């Protein structure tokens, strides 16, 4: 630490007691160091002299009304901003709400159509659904295809093929219209046939 640094710390009272004592000893023995210290003191003192803080009293007296005026303006602007934000938000909310309500109204009107059906119509629709008329048609097509396959590939009679198909549907006695010989033949052919 050079003397200049020590002077700054000494003036700021930041030297520890031992350093301070040593520095003060140096000061006694060095006129040059004393001059330097005085020079620093003078600079800081001059700066304090330049620190004008007593001027402009009228400015400070008038400042409060000026501030109040600005505050009122700011409050007005603030209120205006709030109104603008609130209106914008309201418009957005209304738009979203109207979209939502419009969609709901469509759904409700569709539901309304269903409600206009008579009880008989509703019963007829549910019966049709329960009977799966469309599926039955598909079953018929599938039956005929299987019949053809069984009669062509396994040389079954139409009746036998038909009874096998019925057994698939689970509502036919397996032995109905099928003698032991035929059953044995079916069994033999089925276990030796390569379908794929």
């Amino acid at each position, binding site marked *: 630490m050079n003397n200049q640094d020590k002077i700054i710390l000494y003036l700021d009272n930041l030297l520890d007691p031992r350093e301070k004592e040593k520095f003060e000893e140096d000061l006694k023995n060095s006129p040059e160091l004393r001059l330097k210290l005085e020079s620093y003191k003078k600079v800081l003192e001059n700066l304090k002299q330049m*620190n004008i803080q007593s001027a402009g009293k009228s400015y*400070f007296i008038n400042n409060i009304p000026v501030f109040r005026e600005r505050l009122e303006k700011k409050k007005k602007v603030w209120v205006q901003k709030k109104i603008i934000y609130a209106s914008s938000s309201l418009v957005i909310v209304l738009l979203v709400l109207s979209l939502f309500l419009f969609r709901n109204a469509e759904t409700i009107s569709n539901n309304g159509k269903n409600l206009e059906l008579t009880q008989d119509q509703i019963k007829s629709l549910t019966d049709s659904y329960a009977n799966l008329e469309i599926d039955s048609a598909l079953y018929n097509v599938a039956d005929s295809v299987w019949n053809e396959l069984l009669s062509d590939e396994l040389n079954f009679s139409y009746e036998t093929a038909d009874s096998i198909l019925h057994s698939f549907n689970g509502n036919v006695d397996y032995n109905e219209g099928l003698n032991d010989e035929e059953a044995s033949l079916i069994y033999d052919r089925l276990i030796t046939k390569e379908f794929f």
Partner: protein
Amino acid sequence: MPDSNNDFEMVRSFVAGDESSFNKIALKYQEKIYWHARKMTGNHLDADEILQEVLLVLYSKLKDFRFKSSLYTWIYRITATRSINFIKRKNIRRFFSLEDEESSSLTGGSDIIKNIEDKEKLKKLDNILRRIPAKQREVFIMRNFEELSYEEISEITGRSVGGLKSNYFHAVKKIYELMKDE
């Protein structure tokens, strides 16, 4: 430091709805705010802007004052922060050439100091202070002119005492170099 109890009373009164209490607070502290800002920025117009800004902040934030520090420290903290931010904003504007050095340091006829001698002194001080970095300047002003302790400055600025001592040390060193031949 100013009387805290009286300050707290004024704050409570203002928060309770007494607008005149704010006027009292502003009257009590506006000069301190102004002169700190003035020394930080070096001209009246900027100091005036900071003063208005700080008063507006006080007006809107006094309800959040927690009475943990003195009102003086709290106000000084706002003033110091606003001043540093103002200088940063100004430097950015200057960097992008939106404002030149001349126009930014204009004091002109709008200055509140009418006495020629005082004006000269303050101009000289401004010229010296603006040649040291803002953070060193801030510490130097608080330490040398306001005669605050490092602990008080630390409470205001939120910086460490060690850092503040270092800032002050470098500020004094630089100022001495600028003024030693005068």
